[in-house]
């Protein structure tokens, strides 16, 4: 059994003058946070910046973290909002409607690689509209904890369940079709 401190304890330690405890939180969540940012923004640079921004904001406003809350839900909410801000900025600076797959066009080498199951699933997720893509990514990260997904997205739980149902429906349709479009 591991004796590593819980997230809440690491937050408390950071607040009590041990900032190195925050490093453990970064190690625990940077990959998941980046994953959510990347799935939302579909661009490596933007996802990296949003991830950095989220952790920086979390570090600066750690005092506002409610004791007893889940750190993962909190940091996911921060990165989700940071990603939405970036999407808004992207929309403002481009007159066109955002493409469904903003930056996911693979190069020729990539196209040559055989599609395995995970790759096909990723591609199918990328083809979902943004609201479904985010909800399915959070479902992937947080499992069936609908209340936490709702908290991250700031949506009623019923809406989350509806989005998830439709997202899965679309995913099944995309994956069941002859080939997932790899444009």
């Amino acid at each position, binding site marked *: 059994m591991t004796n590593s401190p819980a997230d809440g304890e690491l937050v408390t330690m950071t607040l009590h003058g041990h900032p190195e405890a925050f490093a453990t939180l970064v190690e625990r969540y940077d990959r998941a946070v980046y994953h959510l940012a990347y799935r939302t923004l579909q661009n490596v640079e933007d996802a990296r910046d949003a991830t950095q921004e989220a952790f920086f904001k979390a570090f600066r406003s750690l005092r506002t973290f409610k004791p007893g809350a889940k750190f993962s839900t909190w940091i996911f909410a921060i990165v989700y909002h940071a990603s939405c801000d970036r999407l808004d900025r992207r929309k403002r600076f481009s007159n066109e409607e955002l493409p469904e797959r903003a930056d996911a066009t693979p190069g020729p080498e990539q196209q040559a690689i055989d599609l395995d199951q*995970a790759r096909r699933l990723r591609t199918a997720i990328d083809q979902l509209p943004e609201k479904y893509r985010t909800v399915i990514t959070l479902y992937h990260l947080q499992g069936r904890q609908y209340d936490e997904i709702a908290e991250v997205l700031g949506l009623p739980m019923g809406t989350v369940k509806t989005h998830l149902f439709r997202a899965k429906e679309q995913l099944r349709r995309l994956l069941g079709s002859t080939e997932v479009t790899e444009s």
Partner: protein
Amino acid sequence: MMYDSDDALDRALFALPLEEPPGELRGSILTATAYRPAPPFSLWEVIAIGAISAVTLWLVILVALGGGALFVNTLAAIARTMATGLSNVMVLGWLGAGAATALWLSLFTSSQSAVMLRQRFEAGRGR
């Protein structure tokens, strides 16, 4: 592969590996947060340095404008005011109460829980 049931799709989703973040990402996050170099002065030190600098400047200007007598008179007035304040029992009482409260708070709120958590944290990292 077809995903006819919810379970099959769920299994595939939960088995999906997370995206690999760029190599330098963790380092840059840590540099900006946990391992950020401490500022050379704390907020209180900056305030104290600012206050001392302002008073020094004010005294220098006094000396420059009015010569030694004005400087000495001003210092005497400051000393008189401080002596009057510190000889007042009420003022001393409030100062004592403030100092005792600050000491009590620092002893019983931060140090104990922080030490315990730090020990667990270091034990966890050492594994």
